[in-house]
């Protein structure tokens, strides 16, 4: 198998497993589940088109996240603003399926709302580092920004989350 074929196979076979995380990434990026559907699908399509450029020994999730990030910022974000509705994120009620309103779920929703209330640049960095567990250097590569910007975004996000998550914490205790 030549290297191009191998790359194509790795991408085709790997995308489905990455998809739920890619979709979640797009929810945080775009703030809305309908837009997340569009961006996640567009990112997969772009990944399949460009599969020969993927280095099979590298990480597929980072590569696809980066594609989604670029698609959103370069092509789809301005359209979302133009079509109205702005880019402010919606409530978690519309993000997760209705579930029994147990205390655990209420708390989880409040935490989601707190993160989604952050500016777009901060919340996507929070997702990559706090949720996905990427190192600062890896998050910087995905977002195509200097590592110093990752640090300043997370510092600002931490200060805001500290305040935003207080009521959530109180309610859970």
């Amino acid at each position, binding site marked *: 198998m030549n290297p191009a074929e191998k790359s194509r196979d790795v991408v085709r076979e790997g995308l*489905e497993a990455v998809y739920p995380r890619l979709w979640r990434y797009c929810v945080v990026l775009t703030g809305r589940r309908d837009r997340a559907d569009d961006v996640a*699908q567009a990112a997969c*399509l772009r990944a399949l088109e460009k599969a020969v450029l993927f280095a099979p020994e590298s990480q597929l999730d980072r590569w696809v996240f980066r594609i989604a990030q670029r698609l959103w910022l*370069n092509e789809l974000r*301005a359209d979302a603003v133009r079509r109205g509705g702005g880019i402010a994120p919606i409530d978690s009620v519309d993000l997760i399926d209705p579930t029994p309103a147990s205390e655990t779920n209420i*708390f989880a929703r409040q*935490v989601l709302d707190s993160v989604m209330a952050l500016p777009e640049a901060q919340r996507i960095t929070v997702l990559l580092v706090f*949720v996905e567990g990427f190192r600062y250097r890896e998050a910087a590569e995905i977002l195509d*920004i200097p590592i110093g910007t990752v640090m300043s975004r997370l510092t600002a996000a*931490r200060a805001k989350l500290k305040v935003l998550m207080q009521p959530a914490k109180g309610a859970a205790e």
Partner: protein
Amino acid sequence: MSRFSDEEIAAYLDGEGDPSLGERLEARAAEDAELRGRIEALTVDKQAIAEAFEGLLGASPHMPTEALTKAAPLSRTDVWRTPGALAGAAAACLAIGLGVGFQLASYRGDGATRNKMVQEAPLESWRDYAAAYHALYVTDTLTHVADDDAARVRELDRASRAVGLPLDGVRAPIDELQFRRAQLLGFEGRALVQVAFLSATGAPMALCVINSPNAGDSEVALETRRDMASASWSQPGLEFLLIGGRDAALTKRAAETLRRRLSAS
């Protein structure tokens, strides 16, 4: 004794940074209540965040595998550069209901912009954001601005104070550009002023000025951003961007005039 920055504290909490950072910070915190307070102010429940987002995975729709793999062969790496295939790719995208479909369609008629889809830089710098914002302007945005000169002067004064640069020089005609209004915006905590003009042909144009502590002197440099002519330059502490329309010669002349007027004022 040097002070730890908030970024260093956050890096420590994330297990990042120099291994000695944690040791130094912990040693100092043991005897410094103020530092302990700052650490506490940046400590968040990362576990709770990770768990809340874990629940979101279950809400993900299934990947539309069949539609995607059918669509992909229509559009290989070089598809965007092939006029015939481009229409096919657009059709494929629309067929599977992607929001990008309209984008492809809008690129079809104009050979000069076709490659932009894969070449445009990410929206990261303040200039990218200013350009994307200005791309939404149409002539009517500025023709219908109230003709209240006193209000416009007040707003211009407010903007001047925000960036620490007298901007009166924009009110006199500048190479066919007519001053319409000034707005105070912001980017990552820095003051950003947008002064809007209309050209003689009705093209909306904007001068953007941002505080930039590390900026030095630089000449006017022409670029194209989002299909608009733009010119950038800087002076100590400030960066400038003039953007709008497609007349690069007008943009250059106006940028040179603005650079002269605003640096002399």
